[in-house]
Structures are given as C-alpha cells and as structure tokens.
C-alpha cells in the first residue's frame, strides 16, 4: 500500500513556499527573459542574420527556456531535500510510514512542477517580444516534462549527497551553467569551427536544447531521435543512481 496522503502533503508542502513568494516566482523569470530579449534579441540579434531561417530572437527561446529549467530544477530539488537535512526536520519524514520512493515522488514532483511553471512563464513572456509558433506541441511538452523530471531527480541526488552549502551549489555553478552556455543554447553549433563542433557533441545539454528547439522550429543540430534518446538515457541514469542510493542505505539514515 502506497502512502498517497504523505506524497500529497510533501508535494503541497514543497509548493507552499512557491505560492508564498508567488510574486518573486513570477517576476524574476519575466524580468530575466525580458533582459535576454533586449540584450540578445534586439541589441545583438539585429546584427546576426537568421539562423537556419529563424530570426535570432526566436532562435534563442528554446535555449533560454532550457537554461532556466535546468538550473531551477536542480536548485529547487536539491534545496528541497537538503534543507530538512540541514534544519533537522528530516526526522519527521524518516520516522513516518513512508518509503524512500514516496518521499522522492513528493519532492521531485514539486521541483519539476515549479520548473514547468517557470517554463510556461518564460514562453508566455517571449510571446510579447516575438511571434512564437510551436511546430510540434506534443514533443515540446514531452521534452520539457522529461527534462524537468530528469534534472529535478538530478538535483535531488545532489541534495542528498551534499553535506554543506558549498557542495550544494558547486555542481550547478561549475558544471551545469557552463554546459548550458556551451551547449548551443544561444547559437547553432554549425556556427562553430569543426573541432569545437565535435567537442560540443560530448555536451549532453546540446541534445536537450536541440530536440527542444526542433519541436518549435523543426531545425536541430542533431537528429531528434538521438535527442530524445539522450534525455531518456539521462533520466534512466538518474533513476539508477537514486535506486543505488536507496539500496546503500541512502545517506539519510545513519
């Protein structure tokens, strides 16, 4: 028997802070999206010709969305589980009749929901600057949801692993942000010299952004099938790590 009520209260509890700070939750993505459009879309974009037939302002939308989704999924999920460990309130979850996976669904579900909400705000804001059409809404949503879930899981793992605030922030800061910027979020890799094109193929974020961009404009750096496969591989890897953490005593219980 699953403890559905526990999943529900953990989920709602995690969302509570989000609603309490709703203005902040909405205002900051709107502001940063607007800034990106002013800087990249208008100022720089006017000097860049179309990228594969798409205006630069439009072209950056999927990358911009992914940048926020990735960093926010990780930071929301990692803080979500790190904080109770830090304050000690985790005792309650450990002593409640819930399994590790039920707690995980609550925490990761809430973090992924927040990221989805954020993506929606960014995309809606974008429509005020450019004429946005989505070629494949289903795939757009599929890429978005899979990415939100995968990176929230990833964040959950970081939050479990981290014993202090430095560790909590080091992965997003030193790994994720560079990967996103170098993963073709704001350019097509065809703009790069051949060597760098090859190097970029090792960047997993490229596949996310490329597939996501395809769902909007039907243009991509790598084939859509491979993009989808990579997202699923990453998701499976995170699930695998979580399962391993669980089996090994999962670092929460001493």
């Amino acid at each position: 028997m699953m403890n559905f009520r526990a999943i529900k209260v953990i989920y709602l509890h995690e969302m509570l802070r989000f609603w309490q700070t709703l203005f902040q939750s909405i205002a900051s993505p709107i502001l940063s999206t607007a800034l990106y459009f002013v800087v990249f879309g208008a100022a720089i974009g006017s000097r860049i010709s179309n990228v594969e037939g798409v205006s630069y302002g439009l072209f950056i939308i999927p990358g911009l969305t992914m940048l926020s989704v990735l960093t926010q999924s990780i930071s929301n999920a990692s803080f979500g589980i790190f904080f109770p460990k830090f304050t000690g309130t985790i005792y309650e979850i450990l002593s409640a009749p819930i399994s590790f996976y039920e707690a995980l669904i609550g925490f990761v579900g809430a973090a992924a929901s927040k990221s989805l909400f954020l993506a929606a705000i960014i995309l809606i804001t974008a429509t005020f600057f450019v004429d946005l059409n989505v070629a494949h809404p289903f795939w757009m949503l599929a890429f978005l949801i899979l990415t939100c879930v995968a990176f929230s899981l990833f964040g959950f793992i970081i939050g479990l692993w981290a014993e202090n605030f430095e560790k909590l922030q080091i992965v997003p800061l030193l790994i994720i942000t560079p990967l996103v910027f170098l993963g073709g979020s704001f350019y097509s890799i065809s703009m790069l010299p051949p060597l760098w094109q090859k190097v970029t193929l090792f960047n997993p974020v490229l596949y996310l952004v490329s597939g996501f961009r395809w769902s909007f404009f039907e243009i991509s750096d790598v084939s859509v099938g491979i993009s989808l496969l990579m997202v699923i591989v990453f998701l499976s890897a995170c699930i695998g790590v979580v399962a391993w953490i669980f089996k090994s005593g999962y670092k929460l219980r001493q």
Partner: protein
Amino acid sequence: MSSIVSIKDLSKTYNSGFEALKNINLDIKKGEILALLGPNGAGKTTLISTICGIVSPTSGTVTVDGSDIITDFRKTRQMIGLVPQELTLGAFEQVFQTVSFSRGLFGCKQDDDYINQLLKDLSLDDKKDIEVRALSGGMKRRVLIAKALSHEPQILFLDEPTAGVDVELRKDMWKIVRQLQDKGVTIILTTHYIEEAEEIAERVGVINNGELLVVEKKELLMENFGKKQLVIELREAAKEIPHTLHKHNVELTDDGLNISYTYDTTNEGSNIQEVLKEVSDSELLLKDIKINQSSLEDIFVDLVKLK
C-alpha cells in the same frame, strides 16, 4: 501486561565506528510510562531513534506490537509518535499547517476538528496562524508535541521533554502524559534528571555508555540505589563531632562548618530524628539544614559495581 515494544540484542555502531548501543534487551509494557535515565551521550536518543526508524540498527531486532520495525515499518511507525530532543521545526509554516502536515505524512485523513482540539489542549489555539519561527522555545516544544500526536499514536516517545522548558509547560506536559496514559497510550521518555524519572515514570531504565544497566520499577530502583545525605551547616566551626553522634554514619568537613549524615532510603530506621536531636542537645549552633540526594553518577557507580 503484554509488551508493546520488544527490543532484542540491539546494537548500533555509527559510521564513525562509535558503538552507541551495546546489546540492548528491553520489553516495554503496553500502557506504561517508562523513563530512560542516563547522562548525556549515554545512547538514549540513539535508542529511541532506532525504534522510530531514524537510525538503522547494526544488529538485533525491534518489534512493535509484534511487527518488525524494518520489514513492517508502515505498521510500526504508524503506531509511534516522536517528540525530538532538538527544537527542529521548519521556519515558514504556520502552526496549524505544520501539525496538519504531520498528520498527512502518517497517512491519516485530514481532520481539522481533531487538530483544533489538539492545539487547544496544548494551549496553542491562539497561535494557529502564527509562523513557527516566531514562537518561543516553550511554544515550539508544544508544537512538536502536537505534531507527534497528530496521527493519534499508541506509543509516544519524548526525548528530553523538559530540557529548557518552563515550569508551566512542564506541568502541562505531565498532565497530558497522564491523560494519554488514561487513553492507553504507552509513553517512553528520556531524561538525565533523576527527579524527573521519579516524578512521572512507573519504571525506569538506566542507560550508560550504550548499555542498559537495569530496568526496574521506580520505587525499587530508588530504594535500591537512592542514598540521601543530611547536611547540617553550623554557625561556628566545630573541632570534632560530639561523641553521641559517633554511632551514626556522620562526618565533619575539614573546615568544621558542615556535619553530614549519609543514610540509605531503604533503611527504614534512618536515624535523622536522633541525629538532629543529638545535634541540638550538643553545643553546636545550627545555621541551616539541607538534604542531598544521591546523584545519578553515584547510582551509576553503584550499578556498575554490582555488575
């Protein structure tokens, strides 16, 4: 009375290699109030954390109402409520919210009436919508008790419930504990104050260095191990003890200002009256009288010697 918690050969070694529990065997009886008495670092928190599922045992088994705490954790944890030692509460939730959250975690159906009543019983009804971080320490402790009782547990663990608590809350707490006992709830509390164990518990388990030294009815334990000392303070230093007092176990401090008489509480014929009479008959000028009870440390020394 049948036992509701049964601990067999339980040991716990932390990852650091520290052995916090050494082969603990204990049966907790249904409906009793049991105090786990021991100094700081004895392993009290480790023991109850293990029963509650916060710490994994290294070896041994614990069953709650016949169910294993590991393989049947849903059933056992459902029966247990825990008030932790530290004031661990989230910052941004309101009182009602956080208590309701606890109830949900334990899989119980939302029941606002029950929670309102609970808050009322704990004098928290006017604090319902206040953020937890704005509460005083005593109030936070009350909130933690409400959270522990939110799912109507049959077994309640209180880890050092009176540490840093004012007199009023302490009284309230003992009142609640007795009310819960009337409803059939089993209560286990830890403390390092012997008076506290004496005040509320029916049985006392003494724990030191990860070992359970003895579990005994409170009265028996106090009788067996309680020594008292009558200290008579003098106005002027005495050179020696009057010879009439020699037949009692009486000593004079080096400065000559205190006479102490040590007696056993088991010894029905403790001769306080005689001692006092002989002091007043003597030339000595009395300043003050006090009674010291044997400290927990003394009891440990005795217990360890016995083993």
